[in-house]
């Protein structure tokens, strides 16, 4: 019996388990999935919790219900992998050997990396919304907050879902307007980037939206520490921003077991061939999504598109054929912009987000880099698609490869 071990039962690991179990013979291949968490969180939904649009139960389901029959699911922490021995060690002493390993253990916030962040103000006036607990705590806080300086900060690049802090800013603006306290709230958006976003066209469009909504952007702000006594954040070049409420995207890093195994870089991301998605060092290890160091967004849409390529290449490797499927870095993100509208960006390694229509050229229905109602509904519908189709590895009517059709240069 040959063995595939999948580390991580998030978006990527779950999709791969479903795809592989469908095609690999059960009497020839065993598939085992390991994850430390019993719950599957719909992470795009965390954004909506602080504002009471979703509540805490709207984004959680048991991981086990998405793992197909015929796949062994172990809930336990990974201690380490010894890639030269093809072996995974779990913290409970269990040992798993593999012929092929898929790493999909993602990226996680590490608030302790920033001095002063996890102190007496943590989850009192300082919140994250990248964890279930953080988003729920912020919801409770915002119910009674009467206003002041709200500072949004991105501590480090790269981080998961690069549009989320912008969406948070837009939704916060709407929330305070509807609450009738917008005039009592100053919103500051502090970012290590030089503008609202990375690439020129989208940065301009999103920067203008921030301005329109009276959200003050403070660019090139690289966070050194938080002074929780005086409630201010301080950058490496000595700039200080005072806050009454700090919403932060803490430093993101890959899983701890990657560090314990000596398999990653200093952010615990694993060096991965950006086209084949195979580890640069080990021929029988593939890396899917946020856990890898490929130069595209850390986001669920990337994982979804990349899973098609990884699947083709893993089957090729199993059959001893060359790995010919190539990932193009395709990413596609809905951006909530507040008041029932949304925008959409679609891009890859080579092409920056451009205006146009998606997925049908000239028709849409979604508008790229446009601010429309239908884009917002796309995001709303996506939660259903995620639970019912995407995780189960079913075909969606979207191409893995990005296309230039429908884009305006």
């Amino acid at each position, binding site marked *: 019996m040959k063995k595939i071990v999948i580390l991580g039962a998030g978006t990527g690991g779950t999709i791969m388990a479903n795809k592989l179990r469908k095609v690999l013979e059960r009497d020839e291949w065993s598939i085992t999935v390991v994850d430390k968490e019993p719950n599957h969180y719909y992470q795009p939904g965390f954004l909506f919790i602080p504002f009471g649009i979703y509540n805490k139960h709207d984004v959680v389901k048991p991981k086990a219900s998405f793992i197909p029959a015929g796949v062994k699911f172990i809930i336990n922490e990974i201690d380490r992998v010894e890639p030269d021995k093809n072996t995974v060690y779990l913290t409970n002493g269990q040992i798993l050997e593999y012929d092929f390993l898929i790493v999909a253990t993602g990226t996680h916030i590490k608030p302790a990396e920033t001095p002063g962040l996890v102190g007496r103000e943590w989850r009192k006036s300082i919140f994250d919304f990248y964890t279930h607990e953080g988003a729920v705590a912020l919801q409770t806080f915002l119910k009674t907050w009467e206003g002041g300086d709200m500072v949004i900060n991105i501590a480090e*690049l790269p981080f998961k879902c690069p549009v989320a802090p912008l969406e948070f800013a837009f939704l916060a603006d709407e929330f305070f307007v509807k609450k009738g306290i917008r005039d009592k709230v100053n919103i500051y958006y502090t970012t290590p980037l030089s503008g609202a976003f990375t690439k020129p066209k989208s940065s301009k469009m999103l920067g203008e939206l921030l301005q329109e909504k009276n959200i003050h952007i403070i660019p*090139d702000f690289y966070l050194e520490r938080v002074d929780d006594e005086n409630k201010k954040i301080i950058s490496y070049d000595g700039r200080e921003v005072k806050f009454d409420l700090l919403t932060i995207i803490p430093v993101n890093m890959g899983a701890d077991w990657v560090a314990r195994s000596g398999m990653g870089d*200093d952010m615990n991301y694993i060096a991965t061939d950006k086209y084949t998605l195979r580890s640069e060092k080990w021929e029988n290890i593939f890396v899917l999504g946020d856990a890898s160091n490929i130069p*595209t967004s850390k986001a669920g849409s990337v994982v979804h598109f990349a899973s098609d390529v990884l699947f083709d290449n893993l089957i090729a490797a199993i059959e001893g054929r060359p790995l010919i499927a190539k990932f193009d870095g395709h990413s596609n993100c809905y951006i909530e912009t507040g008041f029932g509208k949304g925008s959409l960006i679609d891009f890859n390694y080579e092409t920056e987000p451009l205006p146009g229509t998606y997925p049908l050229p000239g028709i849409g229905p979604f508008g790229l880099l446009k601010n429309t109602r239908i884009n917002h509904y796309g995001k709303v519908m996506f939660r259903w698609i995620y639970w019912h189709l995407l995780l189960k590895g079913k075909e969606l009517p979207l191409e893995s490869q990005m296309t230039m059709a429908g884009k305006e240069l």
Partner: protein
Amino acid sequence: MAEKVYAGKTVSVTDDGYLTDPNQWTKEIAIEIAKEEGIELTDKHFAVIEYIREKTLKGEALTIRTIGKSGMVDTKGFYELFPGAPLKKASRIAGIAKPSSCV
């Protein structure tokens, strides 16, 4: 793309002033680009620039964080050497491409 003369040598640069070919770089060019950024280069600057060139030309993607952990200079020191946007300024002076943060 445009051409520019630094230290008597013609080099091609991008719209935002980064050398397109790191092999055209010389220390003299670095000194002149640094002047445009308002920086007087010291040995410490050159040590960091050489490090950034070496790593980047090997294909490693550098961040402010990796440089701060490199042992060459800590993050605060890096900011003192190249105030404001250290990685962008240092990359430009080092004659390598503008650092691109992935979306």
